[in-house]
Protein backbone atom coordinates (compact mmCIF):
# COMPACT_ATOMS: atom_id res chain seq x y z
CA UNK A 1 0.00 0.00 0.00
CA UNK A 2 1.28 3.36 -0.95
CA UNK A 3 2.24 5.82 1.63
CA UNK A 4 -0.30 8.55 1.33
CA UNK A 5 0.87 10.70 4.17
CA UNK A 6 3.82 12.22 2.50
CA UNK A 7 4.89 13.08 -0.91
CA UNK A 8 7.06 10.43 -2.31
CA UNK A 9 10.00 11.07 -4.44
CA UNK A 10 10.13 9.73 -7.89
CA UNK A 11 10.86 6.11 -8.20
CA UNK A 12 13.58 6.28 -10.73
CA UNK A 13 16.42 8.66 -11.26
CA UNK A 14 15.57 11.97 -12.88
CA UNK A 15 17.49 14.72 -14.48
CA UNK A 16 16.41 18.19 -13.53
CA UNK A 17 15.09 20.13 -16.47
CA UNK A 18 17.46 22.70 -17.83
CA UNK A 19 15.79 25.61 -19.46
CA UNK A 20 18.15 26.59 -22.11
CA UNK A 21 18.10 30.24 -22.85
CA UNK A 22 17.39 30.39 -26.50
CA UNK A 23 19.80 32.20 -28.67
CA UNK A 24 19.02 35.82 -29.27
CA UNK A 25 17.03 36.83 -32.23
CA UNK A 26 18.65 36.07 -35.50
CA UNK A 27 17.85 37.86 -38.67
CA UNK A 28 16.29 35.30 -40.94
CA UNK A 29 15.84 37.42 -43.99
CA UNK A 30 17.57 40.28 -45.65
CA UNK A 31 16.30 43.76 -45.10
CA UNK A 32 15.39 44.12 -48.75
CA UNK A 33 12.97 41.26 -48.94
CA UNK A 34 9.59 40.51 -47.53
CA UNK A 35 8.57 37.21 -46.07
CA UNK A 36 7.00 34.77 -48.44
CA UNK A 37 3.25 35.17 -48.67
CA UNK A 38 0.78 32.37 -49.15
CA UNK A 39 -2.49 33.70 -50.52
CA UNK A 40 -5.55 31.81 -51.64
CA UNK A 41 -8.97 33.05 -52.63
CA UNK A 42 -12.32 31.37 -52.41
CA UNK A 43 -11.75 29.45 -49.21
CA UNK A 44 -15.09 30.20 -47.55
CA UNK A 45 -17.91 28.84 -49.72
CA UNK A 46 -20.70 30.63 -47.89
CA UNK A 47 -19.20 34.07 -48.40
CA UNK A 48 -19.47 36.13 -51.57
CA UNK A 49 -15.72 36.37 -51.62
CA UNK A 50 -12.96 35.20 -49.36
CA UNK A 51 -9.22 34.87 -49.05
CA UNK A 52 -6.62 33.44 -46.71
CA UNK A 53 -3.16 34.81 -46.16
CA UNK A 54 -0.24 33.33 -44.32
CA UNK A 55 3.25 34.66 -43.91
CA UNK A 56 6.20 32.35 -43.98
CA UNK A 57 7.35 31.43 -40.49
CA UNK A 58 10.92 32.69 -40.39
CA UNK A 59 12.25 29.88 -38.22
CA UNK A 60 9.70 27.16 -37.76
CA UNK A 61 11.96 25.04 -35.57
CA UNK A 62 11.65 27.50 -32.74
CA UNK A 63 8.64 26.53 -30.68
CA UNK A 64 7.10 29.87 -29.77
CA UNK A 65 7.53 31.43 -33.09
CA UNK A 66 4.44 32.19 -35.06
CA UNK A 67 3.71 33.89 -38.28
CA UNK A 68 0.78 35.93 -39.47
CA UNK A 69 -2.36 34.05 -40.47
CA UNK A 70 -5.35 35.97 -41.69
CA UNK A 71 -8.68 34.96 -43.05
CA UNK A 72 -10.99 37.39 -44.78
CA UNK A 73 -14.59 37.01 -45.82
CA UNK A 74 -16.63 39.44 -47.90
CA UNK A 75 -20.39 39.38 -47.56
CA UNK A 76 -22.21 41.24 -50.24
CA UNK A 77 -23.02 43.27 -52.18
CA UNK A 78 -26.36 42.80 -50.52
CA UNK A 79 -29.35 44.95 -49.88
CA UNK A 80 -29.32 47.44 -47.08
CA UNK A 81 -31.64 47.03 -44.12
CA UNK A 82 -35.02 48.62 -44.66
CA UNK A 83 -34.35 51.33 -42.14
CA UNK A 84 -31.21 52.55 -43.89
CA UNK A 85 -31.47 55.77 -45.86
CA UNK A 86 -30.95 55.84 -49.61
CA UNK A 87 -27.32 55.58 -50.57
CA UNK A 88 -25.99 56.22 -54.05
CA UNK A 89 -22.94 54.15 -53.07
CA UNK A 90 -22.07 50.81 -51.65
CA UNK A 91 -21.80 51.04 -47.87
CA UNK A 92 -18.52 49.52 -46.80
CA UNK A 93 -18.15 48.07 -43.32
CA UNK A 94 -14.88 46.62 -42.10
CA UNK A 95 -14.25 44.48 -39.07
CA UNK A 96 -10.85 43.33 -37.92
CA UNK A 97 -10.97 40.80 -35.12
CA UNK A 98 -8.19 38.92 -33.42
CA UNK A 99 -9.02 35.37 -32.54
CA UNK A 100 -8.88 35.04 -28.73
CA UNK A 101 -5.75 32.92 -29.07
CA UNK A 102 -4.05 35.00 -31.72
CA UNK A 103 -1.71 36.89 -29.46
CA UNK A 104 0.25 36.37 -26.24
CA UNK A 105 -2.42 38.14 -24.30
CA UNK A 106 -5.80 36.57 -24.76
CA UNK A 107 -8.23 38.74 -26.65
CA UNK A 108 -11.84 39.01 -25.66
CA UNK A 109 -14.68 38.43 -28.03
CA UNK A 110 -15.65 42.07 -28.04
CA UNK A 111 -13.57 44.18 -30.32
CA UNK A 112 -11.16 46.34 -28.36
CA UNK A 113 -9.89 49.74 -29.39
CA UNK A 114 -6.86 48.49 -31.29
CA UNK A 115 -9.05 46.21 -33.37
CA UNK A 116 -11.43 49.05 -34.11
CA UNK A 117 -8.50 51.23 -34.99
CA UNK A 118 -7.26 48.62 -37.44
CA UNK A 119 -10.75 48.46 -38.87
CA UNK A 120 -10.73 52.18 -39.60
CA UNK A 121 -7.33 51.93 -41.26
CA UNK A 122 -8.53 49.04 -43.37
CA UNK A 123 -11.67 50.88 -44.33
CA UNK A 124 -9.68 53.91 -45.46
CA UNK A 125 -7.38 51.68 -47.47
CA UNK A 126 -10.21 49.86 -49.20
CA UNK A 127 -12.52 52.78 -49.77
CA UNK A 128 -9.97 54.36 -52.06
CA UNK A 129 -9.76 51.18 -54.05
CA UNK A 130 -13.37 50.25 -54.62
CA UNK A 131 -15.64 52.00 -57.11
CA UNK A 132 -18.47 52.68 -54.76
CA UNK A 133 -21.00 54.17 -57.16
CA UNK A 134 -21.32 50.93 -59.10
CA UNK A 135 -23.47 49.47 -56.36
CA UNK A 136 -26.13 51.92 -55.23
CA UNK A 137 -28.44 50.96 -52.38
CA UNK A 138 -26.21 48.10 -51.29
CA UNK A 139 -23.80 47.24 -48.55
CA UNK A 140 -20.80 45.01 -48.12
CA UNK A 141 -19.23 43.67 -44.95
CA UNK A 142 -15.56 42.82 -44.91
CA UNK A 143 -14.48 40.72 -41.98
CA UNK A 144 -10.84 39.93 -41.33
CA UNK A 145 -10.05 37.40 -38.64
CA UNK A 146 -6.53 37.34 -37.31
CA UNK A 147 -6.01 33.66 -36.66
CA UNK A 148 -2.45 34.13 -35.56
CA UNK A 149 -0.88 37.47 -34.79
CA UNK A 150 2.58 38.39 -35.88
CA UNK A 151 4.16 38.02 -32.46
CA UNK A 152 7.04 36.11 -31.08
CA UNK A 153 5.99 34.04 -28.09
CA UNK A 154 9.34 32.58 -27.44
CA UNK A 155 10.58 33.40 -24.02
CA UNK A 156 9.54 36.02 -21.58
CA UNK A 157 12.80 37.91 -21.61
CA UNK A 158 12.52 38.68 -25.24
CA UNK A 159 9.12 40.16 -24.66
CA UNK A 160 9.50 43.84 -24.99
CA UNK A 161 7.03 46.42 -24.01
CA UNK A 162 4.22 45.92 -26.36
CA UNK A 163 4.68 48.97 -28.48
CA UNK A 164 2.21 47.83 -31.06
CA UNK A 165 4.67 47.56 -33.89
CA UNK A 166 3.19 44.21 -34.82
CA UNK A 167 -0.07 46.01 -35.52
CA UNK A 168 1.49 47.48 -38.62
CA UNK A 169 2.33 44.04 -39.98
CA UNK A 170 -1.16 42.85 -39.20
CA UNK A 171 -2.66 45.85 -40.97
CA UNK A 172 -0.63 45.37 -44.10
CA UNK A 173 -1.68 41.71 -44.16
CA UNK A 174 -5.31 42.72 -43.65
CA UNK A 175 -5.14 45.10 -46.61
CA UNK A 176 -3.63 42.49 -48.89
CA UNK A 177 -6.00 39.72 -47.91
CA UNK A 178 -9.07 41.96 -48.09
CA UNK A 179 -8.04 43.15 -51.52
CA UNK A 180 -7.91 39.60 -52.82
CA UNK A 181 -11.24 38.76 -51.19
CA UNK A 182 -12.95 41.81 -52.70
CA UNK A 183 -11.70 40.88 -56.15
CA UNK A 184 -13.00 37.38 -55.50
CA UNK A 185 -16.40 38.79 -54.59
CA UNK A 186 -16.57 40.71 -57.85
CA UNK A 187 -16.82 44.18 -56.39
CA UNK A 188 -15.52 46.84 -58.74
CA UNK A 189 -12.08 48.17 -57.80
CA UNK A 190 -9.76 50.61 -59.48
CA UNK A 191 -6.80 48.40 -58.70
CA UNK A 192 -5.68 45.62 -56.42
CA UNK A 193 -4.60 47.41 -53.30
CA UNK A 194 -1.76 45.86 -51.36
CA UNK A 195 -0.23 46.56 -47.98
CA UNK A 196 3.41 46.86 -47.08
CA UNK A 197 5.51 47.81 -44.07
CA UNK A 198 8.96 49.28 -43.68
CA UNK A 199 10.69 50.17 -40.45
CA UNK A 200 13.69 52.03 -39.23
CA UNK A 201 15.36 49.57 -36.88
CA UNK A 202 18.27 49.87 -34.55
CA UNK A 203 20.02 46.64 -33.62
CA UNK A 204 22.15 48.07 -30.86
CA UNK A 205 23.96 51.22 -29.93
CA UNK A 206 26.95 50.68 -32.10
CA UNK A 207 25.38 50.26 -35.47
CA UNK A 208 23.52 52.91 -37.32
CA UNK A 209 19.77 52.46 -37.75
CA UNK A 210 18.80 50.80 -40.97
CA UNK A 211 15.60 50.57 -42.93
CA UNK A 212 14.13 47.12 -43.36
CA UNK A 213 11.11 45.95 -45.28
CA UNK A 214 8.53 43.76 -43.59
CA UNK A 215 10.23 43.89 -40.19
CA UNK A 216 9.93 40.87 -37.93
CA UNK A 217 9.58 42.66 -34.64
CA UNK A 218 11.25 40.00 -32.55
CA UNK A 219 14.36 39.90 -34.66
CA UNK A 220 15.38 43.46 -34.21
CA UNK A 221 16.86 45.26 -31.26
CA UNK A 222 14.42 48.07 -31.33
CA UNK A 223 12.20 49.73 -33.83
CA UNK A 224 12.48 53.47 -34.03
CA UNK A 225 9.82 54.15 -36.60
CA UNK A 226 7.65 52.23 -38.94
CA UNK A 227 5.31 52.94 -41.77
CA UNK A 228 2.46 50.91 -43.18
CA UNK A 229 1.13 51.82 -46.59
CA UNK A 230 -1.77 50.69 -48.75
CA UNK A 231 -0.79 51.15 -52.35
CA UNK A 232 -2.41 50.93 -55.77
CA UNK A 233 0.46 49.90 -58.04
CA UNK A 234 -1.13 50.58 -61.43
CA UNK A 235 -2.29 54.02 -60.50
CA UNK A 236 0.75 54.68 -58.35
CA UNK A 237 -1.43 56.00 -55.57
CA UNK A 238 -1.55 55.54 -51.83
CA UNK A 239 -4.93 55.00 -50.21
CA UNK A 240 -3.82 54.67 -46.62
CA UNK A 241 -0.69 55.55 -44.80
CA UNK A 242 0.19 55.08 -41.19
CA UNK A 243 3.50 56.22 -39.85
CA UNK A 244 4.62 56.42 -36.28
CA UNK A 245 7.83 56.59 -34.37
CA UNK A 246 10.62 58.99 -33.76
CA UNK A 247 12.71 60.23 -36.56
CA UNK A 248 15.92 61.93 -35.67
CA UNK A 249 15.52 65.60 -36.32
CA UNK A 250 12.27 65.25 -38.25
CA UNK A 251 14.30 64.32 -41.23
CA UNK A 252 12.21 64.21 -44.33
CA UNK A 253 14.79 62.12 -46.12
CA UNK A 254 14.52 59.24 -43.70
CA UNK A 255 10.80 59.56 -43.88
CA UNK A 256 10.78 59.48 -47.66
CA UNK A 257 13.11 56.50 -47.71
CA UNK A 258 10.87 54.69 -45.28
CA UNK A 259 7.90 55.38 -47.49
CA UNK A 260 9.70 54.24 -50.60
CA UNK A 261 10.69 51.00 -48.97
CA UNK A 262 7.16 50.31 -47.87
CA UNK A 263 6.00 50.92 -51.42
CA UNK A 264 8.45 48.30 -52.57
CA UNK A 265 6.97 45.94 -50.00
CA UNK A 266 3.50 46.77 -51.36
CA UNK A 267 4.56 45.94 -54.89
CA UNK A 268 5.91 42.60 -53.73
CA UNK A 269 2.63 41.81 -52.00
CA UNK A 270 0.69 42.97 -55.04
CA UNK A 271 2.52 40.49 -57.26
CA UNK A 272 1.24 37.73 -55.03
CA UNK A 273 -2.32 39.02 -55.36
CA UNK A 274 -2.07 39.28 -59.14
CA UNK A 275 -0.70 35.77 -59.44
CA UNK A 276 -3.33 34.29 -57.19
CA UNK A 277 -6.16 36.08 -58.99
CA UNK A 278 -4.91 34.87 -62.34
CA UNK A 279 -4.92 31.35 -61.01
CA UNK A 280 -8.43 31.79 -59.67
CA UNK A 281 -9.69 32.72 -63.12
CA UNK A 282 -7.89 29.84 -64.78
CA UNK A 283 -9.30 27.41 -62.28
CA UNK A 284 -12.78 28.77 -62.84
CA UNK A 285 -12.42 28.44 -66.57
CA UNK A 286 -11.27 24.88 -66.17
CA UNK A 287 -14.42 23.98 -64.29
CA UNK A 288 -16.94 25.54 -66.57
Amino acid sequence: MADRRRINGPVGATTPPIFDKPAGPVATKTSDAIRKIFLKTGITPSASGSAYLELENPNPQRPGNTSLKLSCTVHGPRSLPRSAPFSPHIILTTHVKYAPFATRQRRGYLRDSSERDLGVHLETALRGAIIADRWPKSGVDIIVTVVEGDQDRDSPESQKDDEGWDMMNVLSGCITVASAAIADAGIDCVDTVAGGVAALVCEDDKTAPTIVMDPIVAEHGSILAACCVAYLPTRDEITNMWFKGRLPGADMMVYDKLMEKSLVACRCANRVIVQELNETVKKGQGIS
Partner: protein
Amino acid sequence: MAQTIAIPGQLLGPSSKYVAGPGTHIHEANLYSSVLGTVTIAQPEKKIAPGPAKRLTKIAGLPSSSAQLPTISVSRTGITEKREVLPEVGNVVLCRVTRIQPRQATVAILVVGDTVLEAEWQGVIRPQDVRATEKDKVKIYESFRPGDIVRAQVISLGDQASYYLATASNDLGVIMATSEAGNVMYPVSWKEYRDPETGINENRKVAKPF
Protein backbone atom coordinates in the same frame (compact mmCIF):
# COMPACT_ATOMS: atom_id res chain seq x y z
CA MET B 1 -11.65 34.44 -79.50
CA ALA B 2 -9.17 33.67 -76.81
CA GLN B 3 -10.37 34.71 -73.43
CA THR B 4 -8.11 37.32 -71.94
CA ILE B 5 -8.03 37.45 -68.20
CA ALA B 6 -8.27 40.84 -66.58
CA ILE B 7 -7.68 41.66 -62.98
CA PRO B 8 -8.75 44.91 -61.33
CA GLY B 9 -6.54 47.76 -62.41
CA GLN B 10 -5.36 46.14 -65.61
CA LEU B 11 -5.01 48.46 -68.58
CA LEU B 12 -7.43 47.57 -71.38
CA GLY B 13 -6.83 50.35 -73.87
CA PRO B 14 -7.34 54.04 -74.53
CA SER B 15 -10.80 55.40 -73.95
CA SER B 16 -10.75 56.92 -77.43
CA LYS B 17 -10.78 53.45 -78.96
CA TYR B 18 -13.37 51.74 -76.81
CA VAL B 19 -16.51 52.50 -74.93
CA ALA B 20 -16.45 51.55 -71.29
CA GLY B 21 -18.71 48.59 -70.65
CA PRO B 22 -19.51 46.86 -67.39
CA GLY B 23 -16.58 45.86 -65.27
CA THR B 24 -14.37 48.65 -66.55
CA HIS B 25 -13.56 52.19 -65.54
CA ILE B 26 -11.88 55.22 -67.07
CA HIS B 27 -8.84 56.77 -65.50
CA GLU B 28 -6.83 59.46 -67.21
CA ALA B 29 -8.21 58.73 -70.69
CA ASN B 30 -7.49 55.03 -70.42
CA LEU B 31 -9.77 52.13 -69.80
CA TYR B 32 -8.97 49.80 -66.96
CA SER B 33 -10.60 46.68 -65.72
CA SER B 34 -12.39 47.01 -62.43
CA VAL B 35 -13.31 43.40 -61.73
CA LEU B 36 -11.69 40.04 -62.00
CA GLY B 37 -12.87 38.27 -65.13
CA THR B 38 -12.51 37.80 -68.82
CA VAL B 39 -12.37 40.58 -71.39
CA THR B 40 -15.11 40.85 -73.99
CA ILE B 41 -15.04 43.27 -76.89
CA ALA B 42 -18.42 43.83 -78.48
CA GLN B 43 -18.80 45.55 -81.81
CA PRO B 44 -21.49 48.20 -81.70
CA GLU B 45 -23.78 46.49 -84.24
CA LYS B 46 -24.54 43.38 -82.36
CA LYS B 47 -26.31 43.59 -79.13
CA ILE B 48 -25.52 41.23 -76.38
CA ALA B 49 -28.77 39.81 -75.31
CA PRO B 50 -28.74 38.06 -71.99
CA GLY B 51 -27.83 38.59 -68.46
CA PRO B 52 -25.85 41.33 -66.89
CA ALA B 53 -24.75 42.54 -70.29
CA LYS B 54 -28.04 44.46 -70.35
CA ARG B 55 -26.05 47.35 -69.17
CA LEU B 56 -24.56 47.66 -72.61
CA THR B 57 -27.79 48.84 -74.12
CA LYS B 58 -27.70 51.86 -71.93
CA ILE B 59 -24.32 52.88 -73.05
CA ALA B 60 -25.15 52.30 -76.66
CA GLY B 61 -27.75 54.99 -76.33
CA LEU B 62 -25.20 57.61 -75.46
CA PRO B 63 -24.08 60.37 -77.80
CA SER B 64 -23.36 59.25 -81.31
CA SER B 65 -19.67 60.05 -81.21
CA SER B 66 -19.00 57.12 -78.94
CA ALA B 67 -21.67 54.83 -80.30
CA GLN B 68 -19.53 53.73 -83.21
CA LEU B 69 -16.78 52.43 -80.98
CA PRO B 70 -16.65 48.85 -79.81
CA THR B 71 -17.58 48.30 -76.21
CA ILE B 72 -15.06 46.64 -74.00
CA SER B 73 -16.24 44.92 -70.89
CA VAL B 74 -14.98 42.54 -68.26
CA SER B 75 -17.36 39.84 -67.24
CA ARG B 76 -17.24 37.30 -64.51
CA THR B 77 -19.23 34.81 -66.54
CA GLY B 78 -17.60 31.45 -66.64
CA ILE B 79 -15.14 32.17 -63.89
CA THR B 80 -17.26 31.51 -60.95
CA GLU B 81 -20.80 30.45 -60.28
CA LYS B 82 -21.12 33.19 -57.79
CA ARG B 83 -21.67 36.62 -59.19
CA GLU B 84 -23.74 39.45 -58.05
CA VAL B 85 -25.63 41.77 -60.37
CA LEU B 86 -27.70 44.70 -59.36
CA PRO B 87 -31.20 44.80 -60.78
CA GLU B 88 -31.37 47.62 -63.27
CA VAL B 89 -34.13 49.53 -64.92
CA GLY B 90 -35.28 47.50 -67.91
CA ASN B 91 -34.04 44.16 -66.60
CA VAL B 92 -36.43 41.23 -66.59
CA VAL B 93 -36.27 39.55 -63.23
CA LEU B 94 -37.74 36.52 -61.56
CA CYS B 95 -38.99 37.02 -58.06
CA ARG B 96 -40.95 35.40 -55.30
CA VAL B 97 -43.89 37.17 -53.73
CA THR B 98 -43.23 37.51 -50.02
CA ARG B 99 -46.07 39.65 -48.86
CA ILE B 100 -49.20 41.21 -50.25
CA GLN B 101 -50.86 44.38 -49.10
CA PRO B 102 -53.72 46.28 -50.73
CA ARG B 103 -51.35 48.96 -51.99
CA GLN B 104 -48.46 46.81 -53.10
CA ALA B 105 -47.00 43.34 -53.40
CA THR B 106 -43.57 42.87 -51.88
CA VAL B 107 -41.27 40.47 -53.68
CA ALA B 108 -37.77 39.11 -53.33
CA ILE B 109 -35.79 39.32 -56.55
CA LEU B 110 -34.08 35.99 -57.20
CA VAL B 111 -32.85 36.11 -60.78
CA VAL B 112 -31.78 39.07 -62.89
CA GLY B 113 -31.56 38.20 -66.57
CA ASP B 114 -29.63 34.95 -66.54
CA THR B 115 -27.93 35.54 -63.28
CA VAL B 116 -29.05 33.81 -60.13
CA LEU B 117 -28.47 36.23 -57.31
CA GLU B 118 -26.64 35.51 -54.11
CA ALA B 119 -28.34 38.18 -52.11
CA GLU B 120 -32.01 38.97 -51.97
CA TRP B 121 -33.02 42.35 -53.23
CA GLN B 122 -36.43 43.60 -52.36
CA GLY B 123 -38.88 44.73 -54.98
CA VAL B 124 -42.35 46.19 -54.94
CA ILE B 125 -45.18 45.84 -57.45
CA ARG B 126 -47.76 48.55 -57.15
CA PRO B 127 -51.35 48.02 -58.36
CA GLN B 128 -50.96 50.49 -61.22
CA ASP B 129 -48.01 48.54 -62.55
CA VAL B 130 -49.68 45.12 -62.60
CA ARG B 131 -51.57 45.45 -65.87
CA ALA B 132 -51.22 47.67 -68.88
CA THR B 133 -54.97 48.17 -69.20
CA GLU B 134 -57.77 48.77 -66.75
CA LYS B 135 -55.25 49.77 -64.13
CA ASP B 136 -57.92 51.11 -61.81
CA LYS B 137 -59.59 47.74 -61.45
CA VAL B 138 -56.47 45.84 -60.44
CA LYS B 139 -56.57 44.31 -56.99
CA ILE B 140 -53.31 43.06 -55.65
CA TYR B 141 -54.83 40.01 -53.97
CA GLU B 142 -56.43 39.05 -57.26
CA SER B 143 -53.08 39.19 -58.99
CA PHE B 144 -50.52 37.66 -56.65
CA ARG B 145 -50.30 35.43 -53.63
CA PRO B 146 -47.31 34.93 -51.33
CA GLY B 147 -45.10 32.20 -52.70
CA ASP B 148 -45.85 32.86 -56.37
CA ILE B 149 -42.96 33.10 -58.76
CA VAL B 150 -43.34 36.20 -60.91
CA ARG B 151 -41.58 37.37 -64.01
CA ALA B 152 -41.41 41.17 -63.92
CA GLN B 153 -39.50 44.09 -65.28
CA VAL B 154 -37.61 46.67 -63.25
CA ILE B 155 -39.08 50.10 -63.87
CA SER B 156 -37.34 52.20 -61.24
CA LEU B 157 -34.59 52.16 -58.69
CA GLY B 158 -37.41 52.99 -56.33
CA ASP B 159 -37.05 54.26 -52.79
CA GLN B 160 -34.28 53.48 -50.36
CA ALA B 161 -35.33 49.90 -49.81
CA SER B 162 -37.09 48.47 -52.85
CA TYR B 163 -36.92 48.36 -56.61
CA TYR B 164 -40.13 49.09 -58.45
CA LEU B 165 -41.25 46.30 -60.71
CA ALA B 166 -44.02 46.06 -63.27
CA THR B 167 -45.87 43.14 -64.86
CA ALA B 168 -47.76 45.29 -67.34
CA SER B 169 -47.06 43.14 -70.37
CA ASN B 170 -48.42 39.88 -71.74
CA ASP B 171 -45.34 37.79 -71.07
CA LEU B 172 -44.92 39.14 -67.55
CA GLY B 173 -46.76 37.96 -64.50
CA VAL B 174 -47.10 34.86 -62.38
CA ILE B 175 -45.29 31.92 -63.92
CA MET B 176 -45.58 29.49 -61.04
CA ALA B 177 -48.29 29.36 -58.46
CA THR B 178 -49.47 27.02 -55.78
CA SER B 179 -53.07 26.77 -54.73
CA GLU B 180 -54.44 27.26 -51.26
CA ALA B 181 -54.52 23.49 -51.01
CA GLY B 182 -50.80 23.48 -51.67
CA ASN B 183 -50.78 22.04 -55.16
CA VAL B 184 -48.88 23.38 -58.12
CA MET B 185 -51.37 24.93 -60.49
CA TYR B 186 -51.45 25.47 -64.21
CA PRO B 187 -52.63 28.55 -66.06
CA VAL B 188 -55.99 28.37 -67.75
CA SER B 189 -56.54 31.93 -68.87
CA TRP B 190 -54.93 35.36 -68.79
CA LYS B 191 -56.20 35.78 -65.28
CA GLU B 192 -56.67 32.36 -63.79
CA TYR B 193 -54.70 29.40 -62.55
CA ARG B 194 -56.31 26.05 -61.82
CA ASP B 195 -55.51 23.51 -59.17
CA PRO B 196 -55.30 20.14 -60.96
CA GLU B 197 -56.53 18.19 -57.92
CA THR B 198 -59.30 20.28 -56.46
CA GLY B 199 -60.20 21.88 -59.75
CA ILE B 200 -60.64 25.28 -58.15
CA ASN B 201 -59.60 28.34 -60.09
CA GLU B 202 -57.61 31.10 -58.48
CA ASN B 203 -57.08 34.62 -59.79
CA ARG B 204 -53.61 35.67 -60.84
CA LYS B 205 -51.92 38.04 -63.25
CA VAL B 206 -50.83 35.24 -65.52
CA ALA B 207 -47.77 35.49 -67.68
CA LYS B 208 -48.31 34.30 -71.21
CA PRO B 209 -46.58 30.94 -71.52
CA PHE B 210 -43.91 30.81 -74.20
